């Protein structure tokens, strides 16, 4: 990697790549020279080590190294935007670098701190609230960092609540008259879904709601409307990495209610209910067994405590800061002036991509411009 850095924002990523490559080379040399590892009865371990090192290098090559060798101006603009978010909300970990090379939707590589965004998303505002969701993933995945230990403690307490809930369900099932074996398996699968991914996703949704506000719930609404999935769908048997969209929306609204956003909750709920009605989807019995309101409420409370405990700014109706205002007002404008929204969005994005960290985020002459400046430093 002898190329010059495309921008200072990429320096940590480059250093991380160089360290990872050095580490992989050292481990490969060890596989070739360590007499213990070369023993015939340890061939399985040697093969597993080898495959994992190669897999790590391949992942590094297709993500971070691609980002460093094919930089785009939009990567820099969004990396700066994430840096502003990091400052605004007092995010306790280093801000990730953004690349617009995602082939899917928004995602983050937590160990490389590389946030991947689809190329076109840097030209629109309405999905950018998902940046807040993605930066929450490292708060769960990072290990041994005392700055976020209290957040993880709340998360762990929630996982324990999940296990206790499904233990109780299994015990009640043993006393029931229904097909016991079937439901026992169902409750094991649901517990597995929750602990493997659903709890994580719902905590990240709630982090976004607590640090950004209603714009995140609107973004989830928009994303769900544009997909074909049934918001109540629970696949058993099967595999579900993410919770049903209905459960995600319910927990977000609980979070917003906790913070006192009465009017936005009412508006979002009204649009959501109309959307669900239009799809013809209905809650199934398994949906409520999978996503009971008490678990969603417990998640809302635990995530709120966790987010507060690490010193992140929790939004209120009085909160004002540039990125927060931009993303929330984009949604307000989208609903209030749909005919002029796209022109306004185009101008705002153009302005966003050319401003530096201390400049205004909204273009001159915008009726939404509140002339709020980024704080110095």
């Amino acid at each position, binding site marked *: 990697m002898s190329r010059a850095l495309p921008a200072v924002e990429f320096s940590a990523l480059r250093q991380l790549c160089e360290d990872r490559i050095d580490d992989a080379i050292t481990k490969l040399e060890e596989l070739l020279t360590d007499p*213990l*590892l070369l*023993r015939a*009865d*340890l061939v*399985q*371990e040697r093969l*597993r*080590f080898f*495959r*994992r090192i190669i*897999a790590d290098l391949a*992942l590094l090559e*297709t993500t971070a190294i691609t980002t460093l060798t094919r930089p785009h101006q939009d990567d820099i603009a969004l990396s700066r935007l994430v840096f502003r978010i990091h400052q605004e909300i007092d995010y306790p970990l280093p801000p990730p670098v953004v690349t617009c090379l*995602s*082939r*899917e*939707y*928004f*995602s*983050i*590589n*937590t*160990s490389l701190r590389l946030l*991947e965004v689809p190329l076109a998303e840097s030209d629109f505002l309405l999905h950018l609230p*998902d940046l807040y*969701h*993605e930066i929450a*993933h*490292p708060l*769960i*995945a990072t*290990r041994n960092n005392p700055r976020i230990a209290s957040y*993880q*403690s709340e*998360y*762990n307490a929630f*996982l*324990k609540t999940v*296990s206790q809930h499904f233990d109780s369900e299994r015990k009640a099932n043993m006393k029931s008259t229904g097909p016991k074996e079937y439901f026992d398996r169902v409750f*094991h*699968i649901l*517990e*597995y879904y929750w*602990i*493997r*991914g659903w709890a*994580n*996703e719902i905590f*990240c949704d709630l982090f976004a709601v607590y640090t950004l506000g209603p714009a995140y719930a609107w973004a*989830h609404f928009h*994303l769900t409307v544009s997909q074909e999935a049934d918001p109540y769908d629970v696949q058993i048997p099967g595999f579900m*990495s*993410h919770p049903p969209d209905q459960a995600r929306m319910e927990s977000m609204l609980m979070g917003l209610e906790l913070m006192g956003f009465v009017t936005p909750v009412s508006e979002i709920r009204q649009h959501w209910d109309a959307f669900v009605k239009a799809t013809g989807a209905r809650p199934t019995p398994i949906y409520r067994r999978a996503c009971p309101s008490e678990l969603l409420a417990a998640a809302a409370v635990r995530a709120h405590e966790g987010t507060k405990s690490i010193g992140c700014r929790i939004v209120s109706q009085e909160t004002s800061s540039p990125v927060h205002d931009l993303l929330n007002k984009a949604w307000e404008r989208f609903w209030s002036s749909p005919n002029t929204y796209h022109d306004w969005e185009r101008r705002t994005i153009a302005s966003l991509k050319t401003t530096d960290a201390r400049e205004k985020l909204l273009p001159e002459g915008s009726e939404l411009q509140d002339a709020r400046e980024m704080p110095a430093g």
Partner: protein
Amino acid sequence: MSNGGLDGGIYEQLRSYADTLDRALVALRDSEASASSRAQHEIAALLRELTNGETSDPASRLVTAILKERLPLVAGQGLALCEALARALEQRPPTSAELDQLEQVALSLDKECSSTLARIKGKR
């Protein structure tokens, strides 16, 4: 909201446990008695951590849930196998049959690492 963020974190945590267990399995075969004894107790502690319902570590809770679901597919038994192995290793070096079972636990973690990585790459 794609799988990348979620699976990336899961992969890192699984990988960390898989590497720790494999390293300890290598050291367990070390001809130097102190090294193999240390590895024996390290594996026992790791298995205890994975079967402790009161753990304060969410990463350990995650790996436990995954093993509980996946281990029976590889080893024919779930977490009870880990508990039995932990009990044995706390008292004495493993028998040849127990070494095979430890290999199955390691294989199970490794398989889950591979399938999580495949999911990150969008292969499934």
